[in-house]
């Protein structure tokens, strides 16, 4: 049985323009053609997801410190939403605090990146993501 693999969409929820640009730049640098949808905060991300603008399969790259609805609150929302509960979420933040890390994993994230530690221009993250969705089986719709 072969399933045609669709390109994975990246939902980037990041309030910082430059960081968001870093990701898109890294994707360009790696010559990846995955669609990237950006939301400026948790609330916008939630709206995008609920409005169905984000095509499955998708991976969410989530910042924690954001206005309106922050990362952890966003995680709470999607984990309570039966349609979104299976979403694969990576956290990308400046916070190194143990509390944030623990709280994030409790909400079933797939990985936690600290911005300082991911190398020049977020290339490493993009490499990980690329490797990840190449071989990982995503949850069915």
């Amino acid at each position: 049985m072969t399933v045609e693999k669709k390109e994975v969409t990246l939902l980037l929820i990041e309030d910082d323009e430059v960081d968001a640009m870093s990701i898109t730049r890294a994707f360009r640098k790696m010559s990846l053609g995955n669609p990237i949808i950006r939301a400026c905060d948790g609330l916008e991300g939630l709206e995008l997801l609920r409005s169905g603008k984000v095509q499955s399969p998708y991976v969410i790259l989530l910042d924690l410190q954001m206005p309106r609805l922050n990362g952890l609150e966003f995680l709470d929302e999607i984990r309570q939403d039966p349609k979104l509960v299976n979403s694969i979420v990576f956290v990308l933040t400046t916070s190194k605090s143990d509390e944030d890390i623990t709280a994030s994993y409790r909400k079933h994230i797939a990985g936690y990146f600290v911005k300082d530690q991911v190398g020049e221009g977020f290339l490493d993250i993009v490499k990980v993501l690329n490797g990840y969705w190449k071989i990982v089986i995503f949850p069915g719709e």
Partner: protein
Amino acid sequence: MKDIPTESINTESERQKLIDSSQFQGIHWFILMLSCILTFAAWYIATEQHNKSVAERFERESLQSIELVKERMQLYEHALWGAVAHIDASDKEVDYLQWKNYSDSLQIHQTYPGINGLGIILNVKLEQKNSFINQQQKQRANFTIHPSHKEPELWPITYIEPYLTNKQAVGLDVAFEKNRYSGIKNARDTGLAQLTGPITLVQDAKQTPGFLFYAPFYKKGALRDSVSARREAIIGVTYAPFIMSKLISGTLAVDKRHVTLKISDNGESLYNDADNDDASKIDPNPLFIKHIDVDLYGRKWQFQISSNLDFRENSKSNQPHLILLGGVIINLLLLALFIFLSRANKQALAYADVITRELKIKTQRLVKSNQDLEQFAYVASHDLKSPLNAIRKLVSWISEDCENLLPASSKEHLTLLNNRSERMNKLLDDLLDYARIGRHEYKSQPVDLAATAREIFSLLDHPKTFTLSVESQSLNVAKIPLEIVLRNLISNAIKHHDKSSGHIEITYEKDDDSHAIYVKDDGPGIPKDLVDKALEMFQTLRPRDKVEGSGMGLSLSKKTVEHYGGSLTIESDGKSGTTIIVRWPAKNTK
């Protein structure tokens, strides 16, 4: 902060000591009680001794009075026997003139003070009465014998000198009265000097008690070995009349004694101070009274001796009262001292409490302001970092994207921009580290000094020409803070080296209570006057463009070491080489 409980226990126990010493305790009461007991004991003993000595004095004085009376009576007895000897020595019978001469030459008032006179009483048989009177009237025409009585014999007072004061007695027949008569018979029968019982002398105008003192004389050569022989041989007696009050005032002048006398004979009063002019000295409630019976020449005199007012006056002694007063004063002073001390301690305690409270408030404020400052430094440096990171990224993108478009000068500017951003990033990192020092407490763990130092050295970006030698030693300290300190010190040693190659030597010494780590380099050293400056925050001794640095390495290390209770000092001659000495407490409490 872990040592606060022990500290507070210490201060608490010190405080308890103050509280204890500010209260009256058993020992204070014990000392006061002991002192009171001693005072009263001293007072009691002094009083007892005084009373004893007073009693002894009374005893002495009373015995002395009696002895004086006895002595005086002996003196009078001698006078009487002297007269007897004179009579016995005369060839013929002693006549009036001869007796007068004798007693004049004797000067009896000077020789025998207290005596009323000295005389002779002759024994006259009834049948010889008239011839005796006739014979006497040859010299003294008015001589008669009186009064008449029924006794078988006469005992007329024949001579008595001095005549003037005794003229009523001349011719008095002493047999007329019982006491006089029995006294003379006793003298005759015993051959001894004898006294009469109390009588009133005829020559005493005041009619006060008195007595006569007889000494018998007998025919020359006659036997006198028995009562009957003596009765047969009796001629007469020499005698002396006494007025008792005169005798006593001559013997025991009232002002020379401290006792009141009362003398009686067989219940009849002989003498009583109360009857005299000096009765004022009598003590109505005498301190002492003594009754003594004294045998005196055939009579028994009862002496009643009691202390008088003079005695009472002399017996007064302030000593016991002074002792009592002194003791009470000492006790009061002691009490005052204890109260004073306890008050002083209470005040000290109150003062200490006030100061402690103020100190606590100040400490709380200080802690709060320190926390605020650290919080501020942390937040500021953290929040400053994200825009900085954005700047750095943007700069790198411009460099990448416009590599072929930009003129060389702009490229250099971009390089400088990047460089300054890097420096600011490092500054913020160090500031964050500095602010974080107090935010996390690291536990002590075994740390291999050599391995740790080598790892840090290898991770630092340095030319291959730099070498490190480190003493192998295992310490039990907080690892991460020690790493921060070593990293900064080693990094400084390399960064500030003036030559292209260098050597860093880390040695270790164990003191009593601390680990001493010496980080020694062979660099340019730090001039003495700049040592303090080197430890200040954001201070670099050379321009930052020459040596990349935040200027926080040393102050960060110092603060870290001090946070763990240690110290960091710099030793340098300012010419070659610097030694940084880190003393890390060896105690496991931190």
